[in-house]
């Protein structure tokens, strides 16, 4: 029997993977070929989707990008026997885009059946949990500290310190919350992880529960990810059935329950305290800190709240040891960061690398330049609150410290490329407009400042045609507004919106009449 892999992730399906799977199945029936289709997660090489793989003696061989209309010809050329031909890419593992990565979080993505606990275990899954189950809670926290793991949601706070705080609170109902409200444009690593290897997240959350004494976890998933929701619901049921969730985890007598909850289309709920309010069934309003969620979190109880990739990393830290993880990366940026190449890019997808490679090598080596073939004008790293970088700044090292020093933000690792046709005044205006739409409204600088920001940028657009005095006045006004928002806002939404605005003005003055 021949095994064929056809991805089921959002992007592959958006490019027609379901139709490809149907066509393969129909064609095989017609030709009397005994063939079994596994709907794996994607490898994250989105420019090659739909990427179909065939299991052979030498390993999996890949074909892509495949459309349903190509399927008949592929059978004619013997692709089901792994033969060469049109669209043949050779062994999947040897595709340079994949081979040149250092995959930790995404090592299993596209390889395993995302819904199968057995497949996960056959590929090293739950080895970390087995180790953690034999450790004292403090030793688990120490191992996370030792790894140097920092929060992957954007703020890069050391995970071990957060866990220690929750561990040190007196025994009571505690919670593990996974922030899967991945709202930044240009990011899809959380989504792909949940669609391609969700058990890694579930394992990481279980280990977190053991470390801090929490028996209940929630995955707060954005409602814009219906496929991830379907996968998570199914795989949670499978993990319960296999005894990896519930009141006797892997026969240890330890207890951890896990549930997925849907957000409802509010970017601000990616901010951890707004997320907790939303999970409690309220408007997603930002809370004033302190108290920290680690002490007064979900339903007023001590709560570990971490991003998907942070919690997922925990399973590999426990599988391979903190030292192994720490050896990847540079300085205080340890481990790997799955970068997400998006926007106007030739070869978009997930590129997981140890911290410390250059943005330019990522864009050129992996990304292959712009999709349009025109020159790169600007690159926005770190989502809608991240700075726009000009071509001259692209040699920057991909680590938290280098980005901080450049008044930019690595954030969740999203990289959005714009070609020379981009109008940076429009991009700055959009940053303010997005803040108008998504502000929770609790603090004035964010709620009102963003509306005024859109107006001032409109004035600049009008003035740059004809009135240099009005132009200068409005640019000064915009800078003052940015300062008020940066220092006066309660959270990163209003506080970081000035980053894309200011960087656009600084690096692209010609678009602002300069």
């Amino acid at each position, binding site marked *: 029997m021949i095994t064929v892999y056809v991805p089921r992730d959002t992007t592959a399906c*958006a490019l027609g993977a379901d139709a490809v799977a149907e066509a393969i199945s129909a064609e095989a029936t017609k030709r009397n070929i005994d063939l079994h289709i596994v709907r794996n997660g994607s490898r994250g090489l989105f420019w090659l989707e739909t990427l179909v793989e065939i299991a052979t003696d030498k390993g999996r061989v890949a074909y892509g990008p495949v459309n349903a209309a190509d399927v008949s010809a592929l059978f004619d050329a013997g692709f089901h026997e792994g033969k060469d031909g049109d669209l043949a890419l050779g062994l999947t593992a040897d595709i340079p885009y994949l081979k040149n990565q250092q995959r930790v979080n995404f090592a299993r993505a596209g390889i395993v059946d995302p819904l199968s606990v057995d497949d996960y275990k056959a590929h090293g899954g739950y080895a970390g949990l087995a180790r953690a189950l034999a450790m004292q809670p403090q030793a688990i926290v120490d191992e996370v500290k030792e790894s140097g793991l920092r929060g992957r949601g954007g703020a890069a706070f050391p995970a071990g310190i957060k866990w220690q705080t929750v561990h040190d609170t007196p025994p009571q109902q505690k919670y593990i919350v996974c922030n899967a409200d991945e709202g930044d444009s240009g990011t899809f690593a959380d989504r792909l992880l949940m669609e391609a290897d969700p058990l890694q997240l579930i394992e990481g959350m279980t280990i977190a529960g053991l470390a801090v004494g929490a028996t209940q976890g929630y995955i707060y998933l954005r*409602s814009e990810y219906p496929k991830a929701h379907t996968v998570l619901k199914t795989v949670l049921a499978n993990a319960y059935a296999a005894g990896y969730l519930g009141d006797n985890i892997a026969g240890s007598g330890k207890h951890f329950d896990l549930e997925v909850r849907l*957000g*409802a289309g509010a970017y601000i709920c990616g901010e951890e305290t707004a997320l907790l309010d939303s999970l409690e069934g309220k408007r997603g309003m930002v809370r004033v800190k302190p108290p920290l969620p680690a002490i007064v979190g979900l339903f007023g109880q001590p709560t570990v709240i971490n991003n998907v990739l942070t919690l997922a990393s925990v399973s590999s830290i426990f599988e391979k040891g903190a030292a192994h993880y720490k050896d990847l990366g540079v300085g205080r940026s340890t481990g790997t960061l799955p970068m997400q190449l998006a926007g106007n890019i030739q070869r978009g997808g997930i590129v997981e690398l140890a911290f410390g490679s250059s943005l330019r090598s990522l864009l050129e080596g992996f990304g292959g330049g712009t999709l349009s073939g025109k020159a790169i004008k600007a690159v926005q790293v770190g989502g809608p609150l991240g700075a726009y970088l000009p071509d001259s700044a692209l040699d920057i090292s991909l680590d938290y410290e280098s980005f901080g020093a450049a008044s930019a933000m690595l954030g969740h690792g999203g990289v959005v490329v714009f070609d020379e046709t981009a109008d940076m005044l429009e991009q700055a205006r959009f940053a303010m407009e997005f803040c108008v739409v998504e502000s929770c409204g609790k603090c004035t600088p964010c709620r009102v400042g963003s509306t005024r920001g859109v107006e001032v940028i409109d004035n600049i657009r009008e003035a740059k045609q004809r009135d240099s005095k009005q132009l200068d006045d409005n640019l000064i006004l915009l800078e003052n507004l940015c300062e008020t928002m940066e220092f006066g806002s309660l959270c990163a939404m209003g506080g970081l919106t000035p980053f894309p605005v200011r960087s656009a003005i600084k690096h692209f003055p010609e678009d602002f009449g300069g």
Partner: protein
Amino acid sequence: MTPTFDKAAIDAIIAQHQELPGALLPILHDIQHTAGYVPAETVPAIATALSLSRAEVHGVISFYHHFHSQPMGQHTVQICRAEACQSVGARELERHATSKLATELGHTTADGKISLEPVYCLGNCACGPSVQIGDEVHARVTPERFDVLISALKMKEGETTP
């Protein structure tokens, strides 16, 4: 006007979830899934079940972009407006879509068939511009491709309503 929703189904949804911690969002999701929107008439029952004021329930419904308190069109078409899609033509697509359907974002076409909604990121950022119709995401949606998708929606209707 007679309610367009099934009251018994709504009551069952409330009863099913009301003991959950933080039950409001799960209840609203299920009501919207069943009725297509969250009818104002359901708010008192939700408020009573969760010991909340009606204002609190209404406040939550109006806070989240996903929840609608008015009936929607037969199909919901969401266009991604976020940066990654902008960089490959989302602004042009948005202009095309509003002109083609003769409606603004956040509104429903005059014939009640299609609600055109903005969305800020569908996680398909490597292959934009992205459009979501129902639960299906579509990649690389050029204006021409948009027209094909809309025609397909209309064809589907033709099949179901003879």
